[in-house]
């Protein structure tokens, strides 16, 4: 199964690397948007899938990243790379505050609290003088990356986005597969036990909240640079809902399931766009079906299927061997 995964990741990576060379097949700006959401969803899943915390306000971090980067790059002429970094850092700081407040309650209360706090952030960006309210922060220059790579070219930008998203995903993978990640899983499975083992659970939760928010902020920053726009929709609670949908659709108990989910939802939105308001209805129905019938998500189901096939194969082999033995 491990080789299968490595093969799958290699194929996907290869496909992503050639995207700018096949413009007639797929639009690279669309793939960049998809990549932003891939990072966003994987960052979000650090909380939901790996720690068991449902944040219903992650758009606050995504949007904060977008606005901070947009404002810094546009008005203060900050280099794009530093702008993105700053977007991530401010979002992480916000994540520390919101996380520290929200983890005072758990479960469904926590979801409602994060939702309400993210609404506070939404109103801030609606009313703050620099954000352009309903129009959003427009015409953000793409600038240069590390002072040498000109990001006005879609191809150059594409590889930068791909690189940053890959680094972000690596960080998620590293976090999950570390002693820290093990503690997070322990908290998810049985919080009182984690506490009784002596882990400072609250501190762990705030820390994972911060990491998740920071990465979500970077995803938002990237999106602002790609589209040269930071808009209210980025902080709207609909976006928080979208990222939950992506995660659930891909499979929340996996590391890269949310990435698959994000790709699927972005594709759904992109290709169904001509149907206008129907898109909402269709995503709603997909979401409903997921919650009712496929709670494991696409990757989760695939895992289950592969595992059951493997066990049935090994047990069949074992049976054959025991037959041979009898004869």
């Amino acid at each position, binding site marked *: 199964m491990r080789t299968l995964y490595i093969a799958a990741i290699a194929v996907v990576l290869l496909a992503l690397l050639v995207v700018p060379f096949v413009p007639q097949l797929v639009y690279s700006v669309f793939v960049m948007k998809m990549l932003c959401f891939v990072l966003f969803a994987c960052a979000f899943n650090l909380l939901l899938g790996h720690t068991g915390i*449902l944040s*219903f306000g992650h758009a606050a971090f995504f949007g904060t990243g977008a606005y901070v980067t947009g404002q810094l790059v546009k008005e203060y002429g900050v280099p794009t790379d530093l702008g993105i970094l700053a977007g991530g850092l401010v979002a992480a700081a916000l994540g520390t505050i919101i996380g520290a*407040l929200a983890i*005072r*309650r758990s*479960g*469904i*209360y926590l*979801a*409602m*609290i994060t*939702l*309400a*706090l993210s*609404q*506070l952030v939404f*109103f*801030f960006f609606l*009313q703050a003088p620099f954000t352009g309210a309903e129009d959003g922060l427009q015409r953000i220059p793409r600038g240069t990356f590390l002072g040498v790579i000109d990001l006005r070219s879609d191809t150059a930008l594409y590889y930068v986005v791909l690189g940053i998203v890959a680094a972000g995903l690596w960080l998620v993978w590293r976090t999950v597969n570390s002693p820290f990640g093990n503690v997070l899983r322990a908290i998810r499975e049985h919080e009182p036990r984690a506490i009784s083992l002596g882990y400072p659970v609250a501190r762990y939760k705030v820390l994972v909240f911060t990491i998740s928010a920071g990465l979500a902020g970077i995803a938002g920053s990237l999106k602002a640079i790609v589209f040269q726009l930071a808009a209210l929709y980025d902080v709207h*609670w609909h976006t928080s*809902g979208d990222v*939950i*949908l992506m995660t*659930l659709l891909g499979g929340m108990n996996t590391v890269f399931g949310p990435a698959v989910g994000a790709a699927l939802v972005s594709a759904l939105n992109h290709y169904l766009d001509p149907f*206008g*308001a*129907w*898109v*909402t*209805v*269709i*995503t*709603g*129905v997909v*979401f*409903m079906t997921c*919650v*009712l019938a496929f*709670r494991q998500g696409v990757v989760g189901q695939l895992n289950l299927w592969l595992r059951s096939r493997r066990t049935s194969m090994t047990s069949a082999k074992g049976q054959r061997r025991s037959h041979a033995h009898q004869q």
Partner: protein
Amino acid sequence: MDIFGIPIQALLGQLMLGIVNGSFYAVLSLGLAIIFGVLKIVNFAHGAFFMLGAFTAFLLAQYMGANYWVTLFIAPLTVALFGMLFEFLFLRRLYGLDPIYGLLLTFSLVLVLEGGFRVAFGSSGQPFATPELLRGTINLGFMILPIYRGFVIAAALTLCLATWFIIERTSLGASLRAATERSELTQAFGINVPRLITLTYGVGVGLAAFAGVLAAPIFHVNPSMGSSLVIIIFAVVVIGGLGSIMGAIVTGLGLGVVEGFTRVFYSEFSSTIVFLVMVLVLLLRPAGLFGREES
């Protein structure tokens, strides 16, 4: 006469507006509290049912020529039946799972309902006439009260008190409370708990729809009228404490008033004051003003 440099007329006007909004908050968060108490599901679709109530009233008036009083009765009933069907077909499958799934399922229902109405009616609002009988204003001497707003406050409060009375003081309410505490034992006493649960969901949804019909003449009837409201309702519920019925009513009304006053003194803050109060309450009393600490 001025208070803190604000004409008393303006102050009272905003106060009244605050009470009207507070009445909506109270009715909606009451429904949410009842549903959570019995089903352990946070009904994210509460705002959508509010919208559905307003739209059903609008459609009844527009295409069937129904008068206001008929719609005030029929629209909540229709929406409640729809809610019960939803509970029976879908929500029922999620009991016993993490409440997160209930939240997500009702969230997806919001997408379907809002999207559907946007396809059918567009995003712009539909006007809804104030009923003949309740037009005009009365002069109370110290302020001028539009009759319809007065009616909204009265109707909402009556409804809240009636619901409180049924749950806390009747035998139906007693079996309902028993079902939330010890579901299996209640079943063993011959009470049909699943039906009780469906009925409860219907009542909660009906309350939301009723608020929607009340709101129709005040706001424009449009597909997203409930979605901004539902987040405020969530904050109200966190502040009040999710289990408590009295908490929902008192906090709803109180926050409406607080919001009204904020609009007078510092209007930029009026849309966020509820959330700020929530942060404050969370810091001081994590279980909410009327809530008990969860075990």
